[in-house]
C-alpha cells in the first residue's frame, strides 16, 4: 500500500491502535481568522494593509532578488510581499517602520544613482545596490522576512501553492513511514 496515496485520516484508521481521534475534528477550525484573511487578500489581490503600494513594489522587488525566479518559482511567485504585509501588521509589527522607511529609502537611493525607482533598475544595478546595503537592518530584516515568507505555512500569505516547500523538497504531509531517506532505505533493502 502506498502511504502517499492515503489521506491523513485514512492513514490513521489504517494504522490501527488509534485512540481518541477527537483531536482531529477539534483541529479543523485551527487556522486563525487572521491567516484566512491573509490568504483571501492574496487571492483577491486586495490592497495592502501596512505597506503603501510603492513600498510593496519595492519590497517585492527586493524579495525577488533574495530568492530570484529562474527555472523554478522564487519569492515573487510565492507571494512573499503578502506575507510581509501580513506579519508587519501582526507578529512582526515592531519592525514595520524599518521595512517601510527602508523601502522608501531604497527607492530614493535608486533615484539618486540612476534617476529611477528600484524596480525600474536593470538587474545588475539592483544587485549592486542591494550589495551596498547588505548589512543594514532594513536588508537583514527583509531577508529574514523573505525566507520566512518563502518557507512558512501558506496560511500566512506567502509560500503560495507551496512553491517554497517544493523548492527544497519538503512536504508537510503530517505522517511518514520508514524508510525516510536514501541511507535508511539502503539498509532495509540489504536486510529485506
Amino acid at each position: 500500500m502506498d502511504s502517499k496515496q492515503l489521506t491523513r485520516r485514512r492513514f490513521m484508521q489504517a494504522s490501527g491502535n488509534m485512540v481518541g481521534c477527537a483531536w482531529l475534528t477539534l483541529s479543523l477550525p485551527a487556522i486563525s481568522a487572521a491567516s484566512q484573511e491573509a490568504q483571501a487578500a492574496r487571492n483577491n489581490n486586495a490592497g495592502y494593509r501596512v505597506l503603501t503600494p510603492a513600498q510593496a513594489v519595492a519590497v517585492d522587488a527586493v524579495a525577488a532578488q533574495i530568492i530570484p525566479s529562474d527555472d523554478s518559482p522564487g519569492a515573487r511567485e510565492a507571494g512573499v510581499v503578502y506575507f510581509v504585509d501580513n506579519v508587519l501588521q501582526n507578529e512582526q509589527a515592531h519592525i514595520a517602520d524599518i521595512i517601510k522607511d527602508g523601502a522608501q529609502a531604497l527607492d530614493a537611493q535608486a533615484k539618486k544613482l540612476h534617476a529611477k525607482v528600484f524596480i525600474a533598475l536593470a538587474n545588475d544595478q539592483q544587485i549592486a545596490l542591494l550589495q551596498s546595503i547588505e548589512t543594514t537592518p532594513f536588508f537583514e530584516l527583509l531577508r529574514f522576512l523573505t525566507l520566512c515568507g518563502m518557507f512558512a505555512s501558506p496560511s500566512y500569505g506567502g509560500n503560495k501553492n507551496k512553491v517554497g516547500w517544493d523548492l527544497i523538497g519538503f512536504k508537510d504531509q503530517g505522517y511518514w513511514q520508514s524508510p525516510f531517506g536514501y541511507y535508511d532505505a539502503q539498509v532495509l533493502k540489504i536486510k529485506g
Partner: protein
Amino acid sequence: MANTHHSHQGAAATAVSGNKFSTTEEVDFVIVGSGAAGGIMAKELSTAGFNVVVLEQGKRYGLGDFLPHDEWMNSVNQKMMGGSLADTPQTYRETEDEEAKELSYRPLMYGQMVGGSSVLYGANFWRFHEVDFKERSLLGPIKGTGFADWPIDYQELEPYYTKVDWEMGVSGEVGPFDPPRSKDYPMPPLPIKSSGVLLKKAAEKLGLKPFAAPMAINSTAFNNRAPCMHCGFCSGHPCEMGAKSSSLSTMLPLAEATGRCEIRSESTVFNIVTNKQGRVTQVQYWDKDGNEQAQRCKAMVLSANGAETPRLLLMSASESHKNGLANSSGLVGKYLMLNAEALNWGVFEEPLNEYKSVLTTQVIHDFYDADLSKGYYGGGGIDARALPNTPIGFALDGLPPEAPKWGAPYKKMVAHNFTRTLTLFSHLTSLAMERNSVSLDPKIKDKWGRPAIRMTYQDHPDDLKNMAFFSNKASELLDAAGAVTQWGTPIEPTRIAAHLLGTCRMGDDPATSVVDRYHRSHDVKNLFICDGSSFVTSGRGQPTMTIMALAFRAAEHIVRFAKNNDI
C-alpha cells in the same frame, strides 16, 4: 502540615464541581509550574488523596490546537515560549562586573504553557549514569568550581527512572554503556533514520559502539496514547498526536481525573507569602485578567524550572527573608549550568530527509565519562539529526557560514542541501560555578512588572576544551560517514540554552545547598523545590528524564511526610 491526615481523608468532599477550589480554601498543596516536574507532582500528590492547585503562567492548549504545523508561530515567534521579547524580556552578561543587556533573543528558553517545556522538548531521554552522581569523589576537586557529589546516587534513583519509562512512556533499547536497570524499556526503539544509519556506520568504522536513541515518544500505542506518525515536527513543536510523552499528554489528565487537582492556567505567580513561623501560607499571582489573587495552602511545591524558580524565590524577599526566600545559603540562583554543546554539519550525496520523523535515532556514549588524563574535566554524548530540520530554520541557519546569503547561488544551495544535511550534536558537561547565575535584573521588567530574569554566564575553560574535543570527534565521524563537505560551529561561549540547571542545588549541608535530599528547602519546612534547579552536576545533556525521576522520588517522600504530619 497540621491536620493533613484529616484533610486528605475528606479531600474529595472539598473539591467543588469541575475541580475548582476557592482561593480562600487552604488546599493541601499549591504547585507552581506544570512542566516535567510539576506534572508528575500534580499526578502523584492528587492520586495520593491531596487537594492540589497548579498555578501555570502559560495558556492551556488542547491537542486540536496543535495543527496545522506552524514553524512561523512556534519557532520564529515563540508563541509558546513567552511570545514577544518586549513582553517577557531577559538580560545577559558574561560576568558580574558587566551591566546585563537585552539580546535579540531570550538566552534561557522554556515553554510557557500548560505542560511547560515537556510539550516542546525533543524527547531525548538518556538516564544519567552512575558516575554522574559521584564524580567529585571519583575525580577529586576542581579549583574554582562547586564540583560536588549529589546527596543521592543512581541506585536510589533507579526505580524512579523505571517509573518514568513506564508511566511517561519511553522507547529504546539497552545501550552498551547504560547503567543497570530493573526493567526493560516498555517500547522498542523508533525506526532508524538516515542520520542514524550514517552515524552508526561511521562510529562502527572508528571502533565505537553506537546504540538506538532512547526517546520519550511512543513507538507503539502505549498507555492509551497513539504511536508517533513521524510527522517531523518535534523539537520546539507540540505533538498533535499526544505521542510525545509530555506532562500535558500523560500526567496532567491523570491528576485532573482524581477530582482533586485544579490546573489554573494564565496564573502568573509573583510572591510566596510566609508567616511569622516561617511557613508558606499563600501564593500570590495575577489571574488572566491581571487581577491580583492569592491561593492559601498548607504546603507548596515549586517546579517552575531552573530560571523561574530562583526568580520567584528572589522576588519573595521579605523582612524575615531579606535575600529572598529559602536563601540563607545565598545560593538561590547560583551555580547555573546549561549543558555545553558542539555542533558539526555534513552534506551528503543523497537525500536523508531529516525533516521526517523524530529528532534523532542513534547516539554514542563512548566519550561519556570524564578522563582527566586528557588534561581537563568533561564528557558527553553525540547524536545525529539535522539542525534545524524544518524549512524556515534551515533557510535561516542551515547553510555553512561562508555560503551565499541571498540571490541565485543561495537559492541553489538551500534547495540542494535541505534534504542532504546531517548535524552531529554533542551534548556536554557544564561545570558548576558560583559566578554563573540567574538573578533579578535591576532595571528591566516584564509586562507584569516582575524583574526580568538576568543571566550571568561564562563557561569554565574545561567546558570549552571539552567542546573542542567533541567537535574534533564529530568531524572524524562525518569523514567516516562519507560527508561531501563538512563544517563546525566555532568553539565559543554558551549564550543560549534550554537546559536550566543547578540554581537551587540539592545537598545535605544547609550552608552549601538550597534543598535537602528530599527536595525540602533547608529554610522553609513546608516549601519543596523540584525541577532542573535541584541538579548538583549537569550530566551530559538530556536532563528531563532525570528531572522527572527526581520528581517521582520527591513526590513519594512528600506524600510520606504529609501523611506523617511532618510538613
